[in-house]
């Protein structure tokens, strides 16, 4: 398994995809957090810091995409055949991808949330806005951001194993996050459930931030992480079963 993980880490490092996603995410997060921290007039029940750091949740979207691309890219470029020839039992291949992407997600998520906090807190302080969080809260948010990003990368790997078509998988993920969940969020009663149990709400809950724009009745960190992990597990197990049974014709 260590050999397979080394190979997966190389796959991640040696194409532009991962780096572009990482650079894109950090740029958007840094810019968005700076602008929000400068301008925020947040007075809701969550703290101004949490509401601002919600923007770092973009890291989770990018991690979901990175996980999806890590699997669908193998089908798109037909490298899935040679990968399976080296790992005929197939499941270890998916497991190695899962571990590699989750680890990359954890690191990226911690860095993203840490950087966002390093921008947000001084800016709020300079404006004499009380951040509303203490050191322990901040630690929880940074760790939570890492865990949420790792879980989203894992979920992405599962989605990619289920939907091999790269464009199809990416569109599905983005549609869920940015069309289906926000729209369903407007429906009375259903909306509250979507905000708590939809991907956006769970990622924000795991991070200990709010959604963006701020939605506050989220699950708290541990239950949110558990539900998100359950989603990822379902997608990964179903993806592994499909991968084992599929004829690899390209």
């Amino acid at each position, binding site marked *: 398994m260590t*050999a397979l993980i080394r190979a997966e880490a190389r796959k991640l490092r040696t194409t532009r*995809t991962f780096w572009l996603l990482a650079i894109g995410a950090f740029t958007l997060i840094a810019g968005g957090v700076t602008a929000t921290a400068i301008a925020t007039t947040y007075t809701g029940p969550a703290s101004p810091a949490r509401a601002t750091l919600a923007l770092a949740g973009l890291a989770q979207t990018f991690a979901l995409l990175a996980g999806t691309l890590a699997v669908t890219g193998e089908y798109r470029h*037909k490298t899935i*055949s*040679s990968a399976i020839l080296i790992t005929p039992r197939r499941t270890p291949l998916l497991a190695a991808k899962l571990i590699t992407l989750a680890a990359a997600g954890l690191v990226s998520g911690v860095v993203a949330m840490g950087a966002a906090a390093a921008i947000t807190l001084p800016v709020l302080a300079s404006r004499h806005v009380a951040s509303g969080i203490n050191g322990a809260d901040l630690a929880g948010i940074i760790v939570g951001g890492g865990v949420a990003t790792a879980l989203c990368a894992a979920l992405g790997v599962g989605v990619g194993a289920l939907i091999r078509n790269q464009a199809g998988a990416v569109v599905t993920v983005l549609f869920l996050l940015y069309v289906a969940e926000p729209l369903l969020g407007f429906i009375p009663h259903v909306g509250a459930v979507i905000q708590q149990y939809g991907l956006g709400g769970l990622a924000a809950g795991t991070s200990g931030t709010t959604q963006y724009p701020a939605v506050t009745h989220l699950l708290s960190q541990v239950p949110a992480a558990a539900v998100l992990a359950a989603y990822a597990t379902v997608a990964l197990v179903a993806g592994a079963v499909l991968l084992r049974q599929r004829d690899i014709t390209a």
Partner: protein
Amino acid sequence: MRPAIEVAGLTKRFGRTVAVNNLSFTVSYGRITGFLGPNGAGKTTALRALLGLIRPDSGAATFASGSYAELRDPVRAVGALLDASAVHPGRTGRDHLRIMAAAARVPDSRADQLLERVGLARAAGQRAGGYSLGMRQRLGLAATLLGDPAVLVLDEPANGLDPQGIRWLRDQLRILAAEGRAVLVSSHVLAEVAQTVDDVVIISHGCSVAQAPLRALLAARPGRTLEDIYLELTGYPNGESQ
């Protein structure tokens, strides 16, 4: 001694299409076996079934020590090149090979030696998206040799090679067979096959229509070329009368 490859009664359907129909043949160590047939005859499906990528509906395709899935260390037992275009275009040839090396626990230095051997040392640092098909074939052949396997399975390795490349490939295959390896190579390029292979297996519509040492096949039909025989067996309308 068991044959290097034994295909026995292999059948695979995709929906209503029978891609491979009760196909049987063997491949011996130390020989190059040409696997011939028209487009859509089932060559690639048969090779993929042999390599465990496709599950056959019935029959079996095995190596001397068992099916592909049963091989203890597949990369050191069998080297396979199925589709030379199967390279991430954004990755360099060297990275492509080193990724496989890492997964197969083969040292990077071996990957670099193989790039040298297939004539890609200078292009190794370029993105594979800029490689010609011939260069991708060379990269694919390097990948098959990572584990120094005793059996090679190559699907259309001559595609996209220029005349120098074809001569080079022939020499490589001869060397590999002379070292005692079994080489199963599918091809359309009959003139090339006639100069390279020791044995031929010809399939048409998923069935085997001939298998014999090339010399015996030609001796049985004096004055006919491999192309004549191939066209006759695979149902070319005028094959018989030429």
